């Protein structure tokens, strides 16, 4: 009988020990949302203009999401846009919202004051498997100045021919010296 009790004790201890390990493993901090693509695959998104939307051709059935903070949003926002401040992107309500939109097959267009404010959340969300997300090229600045859109040239276009600028400047200088 005594031997049996001893075995039982060890057995119980083993079960408890194993359960504790299992508990630890299960409750260990999992990444909030795992990346669905590698960094190399994400690199292909850099400079990808297919996810850049211009105010001149807005897709229909799109959900606008303002990534600025609530104060900026309250001051003025795109009609029918919802506000998800970029800092809150990983809050449960926000993730549920994005998952819901993805399930509904909706195109989501992020916008900030300018293109850069929306581009970071876009790039991060795209790596988490949300491939229905776009971002607004002209930003809220462009939305407010719809008449002056020529000002928003394509991003990454040089503002001028740099090399030529120096050549011209030197020519001018030589000319003035006469």
């Amino acid at each position, binding site marked *: 009988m005594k031997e049996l009790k001893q075995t039982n004790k060890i057995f119980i201890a083993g079960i408890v020990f*194993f359960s504790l390990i299992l508990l630890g493993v299960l409750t260990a901090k999992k990444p909030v949302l795992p990346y669905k693509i590698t960094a190399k695959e994400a690199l292909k998104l850099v400079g990808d203009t297919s996810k850049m939307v211009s105010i001149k051709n807005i897709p229909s059935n799109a959900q606008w999401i303002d990534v600025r903070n609530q104060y900026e949003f309250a001051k003025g926002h795109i009609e029918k846009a919802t506000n998800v401040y970029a800092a809150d992107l990983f809050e449960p309500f926000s993730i549920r919202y994005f998952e819901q939109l993805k399930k509904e097959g909706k195109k989501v267009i992020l916008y900030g004051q300018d293109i850069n404010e929306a581009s*970071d959340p876009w790039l991060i969300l795209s790596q988490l498997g949300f491939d229905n997300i776009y971002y607004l090229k002209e930003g809220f600045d462009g939305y407010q100045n719809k008449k002056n859109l020529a000002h928003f040239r394509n991003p990454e276009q040089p503002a001028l021919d740099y090399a030529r600028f120096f050549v011209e400047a030197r020519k*001018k200088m030589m000319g003035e010296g006469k």
Partner: protein
Amino acid sequence: MVVAAFGLLFMDGLPDATRLRADQLLLKSMEKGHYINSDDLADKIISGDPSLLIVDLRDSVQYAKYSLPNSLNVPYGKILDKDYIGYFDQDQFKVVLYSNDHLIAEQAWLILSSKNFSDLYVLKGGLNEFFNTIIRPQEPVATAPESEFNKYNTRKAAGYYFGVPMPRSVKNGQGGNGITETGGLLASKKRKAITIRKKKKKKVGGC
């Protein structure tokens, strides 16, 4: 036990276990601590800051036509290639990324930061902003405060370093101190030789 350990390996999630968590990456990008403006960069270039490594993310054609002095060309599509990744996966130099504007450099920064590379910076506004600030500074209005004028003069002086031709009056005043006929004090465009020591890989995971 073995199963649990195995499970832990997958806990970090495929595909790269060494990447910065998405929410931490977002926080880092929102802190905006990774921006450097044109004035500061110009200052560092002129003073020959040895801890700086400037990387031009544009294609080789644009780089050849014009680039910042002492900058390295790594077209952004190649930043993770094994020939180039060493420039970012190191802790000897501070890396300043730039492109024509801000977007590409910022996005490239995000990808590199997600690989846990640190000490990476983005030139705010890119070359376009650099041109509007240093090369072609805006003259302040007459009613502007003195600090604006000081800034303007500093920028003009910096501009000469980067190739803006000096006005003849300035040249003559200094009387033949080696300024070339083409004007300006264009810094050497030769890329300095850089040896990068690979960062010691921190052990990931483990009990």
